[in-house]
């Protein structure tokens, strides 16, 4: 009788479970990937492997991506930058921050398609999974290095496994349960293949924020190679060059932006500073006046103008 009850209990559990873990997103449609022109399989065999030390899946995954991108780091170096002892783990925001601090262009991806597109383009992708269940989570970072659409598989460097092969459908569920977080980490002159312009611009701005202005300028130049009309790219290039002390270069980038967008006061405002730093105060004041005029007399731009006028006294 006890044996019977046990069995019934197990079956009931299994049924409840199957309901609990039903995927919230439709399973990936593998034929769409192939139709979209993705190669049927790709694997980046040269992505280094760091077998994770206890609790260090975050440092291991980021170290792997950074070494692949050309930086000689160790798992322990990276752990100092991303590990949070009181959480016995690594927060996603710290991985993003650390990639930037190491001078890397860190671009979040938001779809499974984009992850595969990056791998096909030769870029490994750091992924965040909940390997277990919503009510019993096992949060985990891994690095995706390959896939095979015919076999429906994704290949990961994960934990202590050099080549963990997981069904794409299972991966889609664990990644969905991990809140769809993925990050491609690149040398600043390389751009991801899959994503649109905005997150790449934000990634470059992230390099400025951590004082990596040379790397930021490199990234903005690459962005302008791909999107020659990018105003954000030109503003960023102007600001990065300004921070590097290349005021003539900053002015050139801002003037190029103004050519297509003379109505934007912020471009004139920043140009004014770049000119002033070159000692071209009259031109700087003229640019600051443009900013005031075109902004409808905004306080911030009037402050720029008064400051420049005061320098001339």
């Amino acid at each position: 009788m006890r044996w019977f009850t046990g069995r019934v209990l197990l079956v009931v559990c299994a049924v409840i479970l199957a309901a609990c873990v039903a995927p919230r997103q439709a399973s990936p449609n593998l034929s769409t990937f192939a139709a979209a022109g993705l190669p049927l399989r790709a694997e980046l065999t040269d992505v280094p492997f760091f077998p994770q030390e206890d609790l260090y899946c975050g440092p291991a995954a980021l170290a792997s991506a950074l070494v692949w991108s050309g930086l000689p780091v160790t798992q322990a170096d990276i752990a100092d930058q991303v590990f949070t002892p009181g959480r016995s783990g690594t927060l996603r925001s710290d991985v993003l921050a650390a990639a930037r601090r190491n001078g890397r262009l860190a671009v979040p991806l938001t779809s499974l398609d984009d992850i595969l597109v990056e791998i096909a383009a030769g870029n490994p992708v750091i992924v965040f999974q909940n390997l277990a269940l919503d009510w019993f989570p096992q949060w985990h970072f891994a690095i995706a290095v390959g896939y095979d659409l015919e076999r429906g598989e994704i290949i990961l460097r994960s934990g202590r496994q050099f080549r963990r092969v997981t069904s794409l459908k299972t991966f889609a569920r664990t990644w969905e349960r991990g809140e769809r977080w993925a990050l491609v980490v690149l040398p600043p002159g390389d751009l991801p293949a899959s994503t649109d312009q905005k997150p790449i611009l934000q990634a470059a701005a992230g390099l400025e924020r951590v004082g990596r202005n040379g790397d930021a300028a490199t990234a903005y130049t690459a962005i302008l190679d791909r999107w020659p009309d990018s105003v954000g790219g030109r503003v960023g290039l102007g600001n990065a060059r300004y921070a590097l002390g290349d005021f003539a270069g900053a002015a050139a980038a801002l003037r190029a932006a103004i050519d297509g967008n003379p109505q934007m006061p912020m471009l004139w405002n920043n140009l004014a500073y770049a000119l002033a730093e070159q000692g071209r105060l009259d031109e700087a004041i003229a640019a600051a006046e443009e900013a005031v005029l075109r902004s409808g007399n905004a306080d911030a731009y009037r402050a720029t103008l008064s400051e420049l006028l005061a320098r001339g006294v």
Partner: protein
Amino acid sequence: MKRNTPSLRALSLATAAAIMFGATAPMPARAAMVSTDQALATLAGETERAAVISFLARDDIRGEMIQLGVDPAEATERVASLSDAEIENIAGRIDELPAGEGLGILIGAAGLVFIILLITDIIGATNVFTFVR
């Protein structure tokens, strides 16, 4: 357009924050340069984030990180690396946001939970055990 331009007060506070956190603090004379972050927000038609709120949130997050055992100088750098939008996402949630740890779940997964995870692994819903394909 006007709503997108930072007020002087907000700018000076943001500068103070940058200096306090020892980040790449702009010289005070340069504070009126429009940063790339601000420019991108303006280009995207987003409203200006309140610098005061961001400043306070950064301070809170840094404090939480230190409480969780992160070295104070290190916490400063981590916080300074994030944009205002990224700060808003994690503000007040450092002790509850998912933290990746990977191995080690078996210690916690006793009895019934172990069996449940084994079943969900077999049906491909979870991916806990390396011996299940």
